[in-house]
């Protein structure tokens, strides 16, 4: 509704915000959502006013003293049709409008900057692509679409930033995404809104929206020295992934070069796009995510890598655009101490029947 009267709108919102009756509108989607919200408030007020007016008027006009004998009326099809169709129409408008906003919030644009958020009882771990880690805080630049990729390590959590009007559940075992574009530098609360146990109400933190320059400075200051992708590369080597995914002609696993975003053929004839979720599951539950032409020999890494580790791996694979890097990694594998890779290195793994031997679920 900002296009109707931006001045009035902003004034109204500011006034309400100052009285702590309304959250600040600090993202691009916020005014859009508020427009719908106020539309619904308006409809409700009108509806409520009509109902209250009817009741008051009839109560005065037809109270017993004034109107001792009731007139029996059966009903009125016309009237009843009216109050069926008008609310229905209004509700449908809300539905369409709301659906548009819903899809907007949950469909990130391609150019969004990705930040990983891992929820666990009871804190939020934030991982930036550059390797910056934060706990219960999120630093982002204003004026840039930010995509959050969320996952939980245990129970359902929910990442909510009221000032941005966005919220998304962090689910165990599955990536979910949400995006926003902050407009106003400042500090805003975020909450865990899904009840997640004892310290649920302490799973909160601040979003710090910075100017692009400020953000750059922050990035530089809080770097941990290794980007997510670099960390992923290290893991990739230490978990002996390179034993199979080495981009060589005789490789036992498919090449991962440029795999991100590509369409992979499945054994059953279908195809699937290799997105973050696919990559994650292909690592943790490979048997379910076979590429055509390869044997199901990859061991599962379920329970062997933390969600942060998976994120690093995914981030590394996302950035793989040439086989050269893989070859390089391959040569470094031998240098790494064996103990770092917790999983059974596939190269040394005997044929699968052996592998399976004595496999009893712990």
């Amino acid at each position, binding site marked *: 509704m900002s296009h109707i009267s931006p001045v009035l709108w902003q004034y109204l919102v500011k006034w309400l915000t100052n009285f702590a009756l309304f959250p600040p509108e600090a993202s691009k989607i916020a005014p859009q959502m508020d427009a719908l919200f106020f539309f619904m408030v308006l409809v409700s007020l009108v509806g409520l006013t009509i109902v209250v007016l009817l009741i008051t008027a009839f109560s005065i006009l037809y109270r017993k003293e004034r109107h001792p004998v009731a007139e029996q009326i059966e009903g009125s099809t016309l009237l009843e049709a009216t109050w069926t169709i008008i609310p229905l129409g209004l509700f449908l408008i809300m539905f369409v409008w709301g659906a548009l906003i819903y899809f907007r919030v949950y469909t990130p644009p391609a150019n969004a900057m990705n930040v990983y958020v891992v929820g666990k009882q009871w804190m939020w771990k934030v991982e930036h692509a550059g390797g910056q880690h934060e706990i219960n805080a999120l630093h982002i630049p204003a004026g840039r679409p930010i995509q959050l990729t969320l996952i939980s390590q245990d129970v359902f959590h929910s990442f909510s930033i009221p000032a941005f009007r966005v919220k998304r559940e962090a689910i165990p075992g599955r990536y979910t995404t949400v995006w926003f574009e902050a407009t106003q530098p400042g500090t805003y609360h975020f909450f865990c809104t899904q009840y997640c146990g004892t310290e649920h109400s302490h799973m909160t933190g601040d979003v710090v929206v910075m100017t692009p320059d400020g953000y750059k400075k922050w990035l530089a200051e809080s770097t941990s020295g290794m980007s997510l992708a670099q960390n992923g590369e290290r893991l990739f080597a230490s978990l002996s992934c390179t034993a199979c995914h080495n981009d060589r002609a005789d490789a036992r696993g498919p090449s991962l070069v440029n795999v991100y975003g590509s369409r992979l053929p499945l054994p059953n004839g279908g195809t699937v796009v290799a997105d973050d979720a696919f990559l994650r599951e292909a690592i943790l539950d*490979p048997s*379910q995510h076979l590429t055509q032409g390869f044997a199901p020999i990859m*061991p599962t890494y379920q329970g062997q890598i933390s969600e942060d580790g998976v994120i690093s791996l995914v981030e590394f694979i996302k950035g793989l655009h040439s086989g050269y890097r893989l070859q390089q990694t391959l040569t470094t594998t031998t240098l790494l101490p064996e103990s770092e890779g917790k999983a059974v290195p596939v190269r040394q793994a005997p044929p699968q029947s052996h*592998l399976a031997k004595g*496999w*009893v*679920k712990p």
Partner: protein
Amino acid sequence: MPDSPAIASSGAATAVETAHAAAHPDYLRHHFESVEQQADTTNFAMWLFLLTEVMFFGGLFMAYLIMRNWYYPAFVEASHHLSIFWGTTNTAVLITSSFTMAMGVWCAETRRKKGLLLSLILTFCLGLVFLCIKGIEWHAEWVQHHVPGLHYSVESFVNPASDPEIYAEYHDRALSPAMALRTEMYFFLYFAMTGMHALHMIVGISILGFMILRARAGSYTNGHVTFVENVGLYWHFVDIIWIFLFPLLYLVSRHG
């Protein structure tokens, strides 16, 4: 009953005499007008109860459906470890018991006391046979280490040859370790569903036992057949549940 003064003679115009001159058998409860009304009412109530049972099992079927879709290979291989012989036999046993139950209802309707007793006893016994066979199967699963939670091994799924019998028949391919773990889900659902079904059988059998005693005393063949009918409905319903459990659990994919 004389009108007590405080009663506005039910306002609603004329009235029907409560006291029936007509037959008023002792099994007619006081708040019903007639035997038919009572029969109809209890019959309808039984159907509604079965409706709730449909939804109750519905939740289980729902869970089964989703998991089967997700982990189809695991479900196939796991179901190969059920005994198709016992499964089919048990289906036949249950169907037969349904038939004898239906005959029991017929005997009650036509007031054949001997026939009724015989049918009830047969049904009772077939029910027990069903449970025994179920017990044999459960025992087999225990021996094969397929009781989830307590005693579970995925050995025969990651290494099919370790179970030569099944392997000879189906040439199962090895499941990947991750998928093999999901066979446990299958067996969980198997035990939950057959267990819930068996629970219903036990309830049914107990009621049948009670009925056999009553029938010997001549109940149910005096024209008051509702109870037999309603238990019959219950018994058939339990049968229907099995009719779906059998293909879903045993026949996921039996060809080699």
